[in-house]
């Protein structure tokens, strides 16, 4: 079927199907009559955002091999800028409209515009950081991007209009399960299609050997910047949805610790493995929540979550330094035997 359809129609149909499934899921989740469903919904949404962040950082760190520690910064740019647009421009306009379907529609249109603008500004930030710093390698790049993230945060701390140190509150609650997982799904598809293309192969070539990549006609700087722009765009979009879901932003949220968290997801999943990033993001979102109850058994009600969390991470890195899936994808790891047999056989075509 897919062969005969024009590419745009085929993709549109898949998108429509995905949207339908998401809408169904969103309604289904709302209908589940459990106490504390709002809490589970919240964790699910945060998981979706974390997956988006991990998958986008994986493009930069895992595919293009540029070790960035500034992802929280890009997320912050998207979160704050989209929240700013909504709070000062879109929400007041929406308030003037009569309640009803049209208002509901405009709310979502505004959300998409705000979040996309957030992503674009984050992409611009990615471009600006990328361009000068990509001459640097390894540790130096990590330090520069780390510095960038902190600069963004300090910058935000000094703008009163978006709340400065008080935090930015009163952002309308427009983000929801549907949007978060739509973006999450798109991020995965984008990343997957990129890595299966000449663009992705160029990323991988840069990661593997820059000198050889240049010699093969690859403009390495351009592709590094490309990876940064795409990765930070997606991080910005994730940040925008985060802002419109939690309704409150605080500069503390975007400390370098947040960047480390995302790096931990990517490294845990295996640098370069998209499914690894997804699985690790899921684990690292649920783990701290699952450990919440441990507190009840501790003397004096102390919260040992961070300790357990850290120990688990360290043990995992000691036993599997290449991450859960290494550089492979989930299905390749479990179907490894089959894969090897295939590679013995003559390729199709």
């Amino acid at each position, binding site marked *: 079927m897919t062969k005969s359809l024009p*590419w*745009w129609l085929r*993709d549109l149909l898949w998108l429509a199907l995905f949207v339908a499934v998401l809408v169904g899921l969103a309604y289904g989740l709302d209908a589940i009559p459990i106490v504390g469903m709002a809490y589970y919904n919240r964790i699910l949404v945060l998981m979706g955002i974390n997956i988006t962040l991990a998958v986008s950082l994986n493009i930069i760190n895992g595919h293009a091999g540029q070790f960035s520690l500034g992802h929280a910064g890009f997320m912050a740019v998207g979160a704050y800028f989209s929240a700013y647009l909504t709070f000062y421009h879109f929400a007041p306009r929406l308030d003037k409209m009569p309640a009803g379907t049209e208002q509901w529609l405009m709310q979502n249109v505004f959300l998409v515009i705000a979040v996309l603008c957030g992503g674009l500004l984050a992409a611009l930030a990615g471009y600006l950081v990328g361009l000068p710093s990509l001459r640097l390698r390894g540790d130096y790049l990590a330090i520069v991007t780390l510095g960038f993230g902190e600069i963004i945060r300090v910058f935000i701390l000094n703008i009163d209009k978006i709340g400065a140190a008080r935090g930015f509150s009163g952002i309308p609650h427009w983000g929801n399960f549907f949007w978060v997982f739509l973006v999450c799904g798109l991020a995965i*598809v*984008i990343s997957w*299609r*990129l890595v*299966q*293309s*000449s*663009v*992705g*192969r*160029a990323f*991988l*070539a840069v990661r*593997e*050997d820059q*000198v*050889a*990549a*240049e*010699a*093969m*006609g*690859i*403009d*390495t700087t351009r592709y590094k910047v*490309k990876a940064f722009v*795409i990765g930070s765009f997606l991080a910005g979009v994730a940040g925008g949805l985060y802002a419109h879901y939690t309704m409150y932003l605080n500069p503390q949220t975007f400390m370098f610790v947040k960047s480390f968290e995302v790096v931990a997801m990517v490294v845990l999943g295996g640098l370069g493995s998209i499914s690894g990033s997804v699985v690790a993001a899921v684990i690292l979102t649920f783990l701290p929540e699952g450990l919440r109850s441990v507190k009840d058994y501790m003397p004096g009600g102390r919260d040992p979550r961070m300790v357990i969390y850290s120990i688990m991470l360290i043990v995992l890195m000691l036993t599997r330094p290449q991450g859960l899936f290494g*550089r492979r994808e989930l299905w390749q790891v479990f179907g490894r035997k089959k*894969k090897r047999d*295939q*590679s*013995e*056989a*003559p*390729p199709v*075509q």
Partner: protein
Amino acid sequence: MANGNALLDARDVTIRFGGLTAVSHFNLGIQPHELVGLIGPNGAGKTTVFNMLTGVYKPTEGQIFVGGVSTHDFKPYQITALGMARTFQNIRLFKELSVLDNVKIGGHIHYKYSAAAAVLKTNRFHEAEEAAEHDAIELLKIFGLENRAGYYAKNLPYGDQRRLEIARALSAQPKLLLLDEPAAGLNDRETRDLLQTIRDIHKRFDIAILVIEHNMELVMELCERIVVLNFGKTIAQGTPGQVRENPVVIEAYLGEPAEAAGI
């Protein structure tokens, strides 16, 4: 201006690393379809010449023209687009990628498209990918690697890694191919095979080849013209016969065990 239809024209090229003059006043013109050898003892500056030709190093003095274009302000990837591709003395494959992907990446300049086309899988994407796949497999067949297209490059035996590097360079569809010691580390049989393969691709793709090689027998048999470097200076130039007889060359190689030099 550069010399007529020369693929490559290096004029009075000199490079200094601090106090060390690694290559001095190097001149070389290569015409289409020529097979030229670049030889010389260890540390003579052969690889450095390659690095200057391909833009990895900028010459301290002198000029290099590729296809009549001065490459002075060019980055390596731009020089590749002018029709020159190379292999490396210390194999530099994309080790963690498949054999097939290595070759596809070699053809990057011919099969690239925008990130948007990749994400949307447009017609351009499908056309380019089909061409890349087809051409890559054809190349792998020439090197007898088509059955191992799915292997990680690092899992190939050493000799095949060397061959894969040549396949990858050819994938860029160069007019001039630079090979840096393609037979290094190969056994006799592999060396004979390689010699035959180089001859084949030379004919089949109608390209010029500049080859650095320590194996004197191979160079003498393969090349129409040979340039001899010693301590960065060109000490001789000519047909294999002329170079073999040249007393300066013999003397330069006397520093090495005669057997290794093969003279």
